[in-house]
């Protein structure tokens, strides 16, 4: 039982999260308490979820991109562009509080986000530009674009419907959490209930073998960049909605780093291939909890980044096979029998031709 548990790659992020929560409870005994106020849930854990929602979203998109052997550095810029477009549209309209205005604003923002994703996908999958370079272009250019849209100012708006996404409540739960969890569920279904997840992993592990097996590797790579940008676009709306303003300089700043960290902490290799959406969500939660912990523990915010780095190093080391081997050796435990290597024990057995698989044709 214990062995099976420790074999799961999710065990370390789970343990890290639990450890962080315990630290918080020790420092702030009321940490886990949740109170209901005006029918809405409030509490530190709810805050963590709500504040972590944009990172979660971006990290979900990033997971698929990383699974395809790529990386998307432009998500922070897309966050800024998306927020800037929505706020600029609402600020310029005659009826900032109208539902129509808000829907149009969100539509424009997400449409442009998808357009930016198409650009990334084009560079990477059609022209074969290295993902880190291709998305670096948009990382810098995108933020410039956001600054152009907002004229370098912080665009503040007053729009009740727009505020719902970032700080509204439905059924007592913050809308932002619900949106992120819905996207999580949707991507989970899309990748694991269809064959998409397997085909994506196949492309990430061995693109050439996948191509020769008839996998639409280009389309898949293209699609993950578009999806990632869409996630960043929604996250941008959330952030702008939460503060009722578009800050082109700071919205989504370093979110690409948080997202990549969340993916890595969650156990998805940067080399591509096997991915875990649940791991990514856990990773995003760890990062957000860490930030909150630093605040509640009264440590200066400047040290947050150092703390983040320490936890990330710890989790990543624990996942590294070489490190585990080292630790295992230290403990001087006998190595478990390896039963994985196949042994060849055939000798001239007859191979019969299989009957045509009729079911496959359906």
């Amino acid at each position, binding site marked *: 039982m214990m062995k099976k548990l420790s074999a799961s790659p999710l065990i370390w992020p789970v343990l890290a999260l639990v450890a962080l929560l315990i630290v918080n409870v020790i420092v702030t005994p009321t940490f886990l308490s949740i109170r209901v106020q005006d029918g809405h849930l409030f509490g530190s854990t709810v805050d963590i979820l709500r504040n972590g929602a944009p990172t979660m979203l971006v990290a979900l998109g990033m997971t698929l991109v990383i699974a395809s052997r790529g990386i998307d550095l432009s998500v922070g810029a897309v966050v800024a562009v998306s927020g800037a477009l929505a706020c600029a549209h609402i600020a310029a309209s005659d009826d900032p509080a109208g539902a129509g205005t808000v829907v149009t604003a969100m539509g424009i923002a997400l449409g442009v986000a998808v357009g930016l994703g198409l650009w990334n996908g084009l560079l990477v999958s059609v022209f074969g530009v290295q993902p880190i370079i291709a998305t670096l272009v948009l990382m810098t250019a995108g933020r410039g674009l956001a600054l152009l849209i907002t004229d370098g100012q912080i665009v503040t708006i007053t729009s009740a419907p727009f505020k719902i996404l970032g700080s509204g409540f439905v059924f007592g739960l913050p809308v932002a959490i619900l949106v992120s969890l819905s996207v999580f569920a949707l991507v989970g279904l899309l990748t694991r*209930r*269809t*064959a*998409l997840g*397997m*085909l994506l*992993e*196949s492309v990430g*592990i*061995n693109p*050439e*073998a*996948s*191509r*020769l*097996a*008839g*996998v*639409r590797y280009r389309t898949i790579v293209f699609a993950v960049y578009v999806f990632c940008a869409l996630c960043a676009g929604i996250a941008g709306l959330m952030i702008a909605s939460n503060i009722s303003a578009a800050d082109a300089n700071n919205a989504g700043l370093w979110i690409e780093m948080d997202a990549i960290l969340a993916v890595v902490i969650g156990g998805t290799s940067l080399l591509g*291939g*096997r991915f875990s959406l649940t791991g990514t969500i856990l990773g995003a939660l760890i990062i957000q909890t860490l930030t909150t912990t630093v605040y509640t523990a009264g440590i200066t915010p400047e040290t947050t980044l150092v703390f983040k780095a320490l936890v990330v190093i710890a989790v990543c080391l624990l996942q590294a096979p070489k490190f585990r081997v080292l630790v295992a050796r230290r403990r001087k435990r006998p190595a478990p029998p390896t039963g*994985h*290597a*196949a*042994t*060849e*024990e*055939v*000798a*001239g*057995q*007859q*191979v*019969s*031709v*299989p*009957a*045509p*698989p009729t*079911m*496959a*044709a*359906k």
Partner: protein
Amino acid sequence: MTTPHPGPTAAPVVRMQGVTIDFPGVKALDAVDFRLLPGEIHALMGENGAGKSTLIKVLTGVYDPDAGSITVDGVEQRFSGPRQAQDAGISTVYQEVNLCTNLTVAENILLGREPRRLGRIDYRAMRRRAAELLGQLDLTIDPGSTLGAHPIAIQQLVAIARATAISARVLILDEPTSSLDADEVAELFRVMRRLRDGGTAILFVSHFLDQVYAISDRMTVLRNGRLVGEYPTAELDRVQLVAAMLGHELDVLEEIGDAASATTPSTGEPVLSARGLGRKPKLQPVDLDVHRGEVVGLAGLLGSGRTELARLLFGADRASSGSVSVNGSSDAMRTPRAAIAKGLAFSSEDRKGEGIIGDLSVRENLILALQARRGFARPLSKKVKDDLVDRYMEALDIRPRNPGTPVKNLSGGNQQKVLLARWLITEPQLFILDEPTRGIDVGAKAQIQKLVTDLAKDGMGVVFISAELDEVARISDRIAVLRDGKCVAQVGSDRSVRELTALIAAGGAE
């Protein structure tokens, strides 16, 4: 044409005895003896998977042999890394030049052993020393020029000069001529002879037989990880050499007997028909037909164009000329997807690089091609999947019989069977098999050979490539012989291996 070289009485500078390298499921080297004499150019010959590169890696300290000994200058060595091998005087120039193209020629030659003065690099002395070394090889290259500004041929010569700078006793040249033109090859050979005459032992690997005969004094032939023999070049003619490289493994194939020739290939419409199919500069236009129930073998040496032809048939590479039609209809957009849709299947010679998806399970690898054809939105149900996977793992005897195992943990033979099963699940009409039996153990090999003949009996068209001529001759109904990127003959399976060998080997000697 060869200058006098020391007779076999000279003490070898390198001697390997009983060197064995075990990889999971296959012996890459099996008790191989090898000796390299000072002042000779020694060609290492063999097909893919013969063990050439493994032997070189043992010699350069990359692999530690599981058994056997290596002595250099009479001292037994156990290299724990490439550095030790270099210190023992063994230097290697690889096919892909591994120098720093952004540094100067002089810096490259003396990298890591720069002359110093007062703790700083003495660039003037460095250039002088580099010019001296280049001069010894009669090379007129400006030591101050940037390496990247020179063509590959010059870069290779610089790499050789670098080897002489560390006063290497043994120089290994791994396919140095593959990207050189005739003049460049001549220049390289001049430098090689000069070094040899100075007493350096040179190990030369090339798949160009002409070059091997032009430059080498002796040769060692490997096949399937075993030593076939060591010969003075003058005493082994081309046909004998090719026969030694391709070999005869009669024992394995007894049970198949003449099964291939017993079948009667239909003479009707071909399943696949290629006209003028070529790809510059590797393959000149070829016409080829494959009928239902027919096994067409592609015979030829490494680099003859056999793999290029297979890839073009499947649409894995873009052809520069010609067309392929399947069941009478040709299509312009030749991609693997289009080929698969028409009932083609292709198992690449590069099992790891272009075949298996290592981290995915056996189950996922098995259904990959079928699932890709159906599209992601129509996943196979668990029941259908399990059924297919069980049936094919059973039928092809894939072990261990655990579909959840990552395929990279399987032995080579079982990985190959997984690949074959992946394609059989798609029920292809034409199966292109590029070296499906390379580097796998004898049992799995026999199973795969049997499978191929059985598939043909059931009406599938097969294109079969193997480095082992005997295997091709036994399994095929018809054989297309390729040489230097040309299809030189298409013959029936009644030809003897000896005749085929002559067809493949003919070349400069014609």
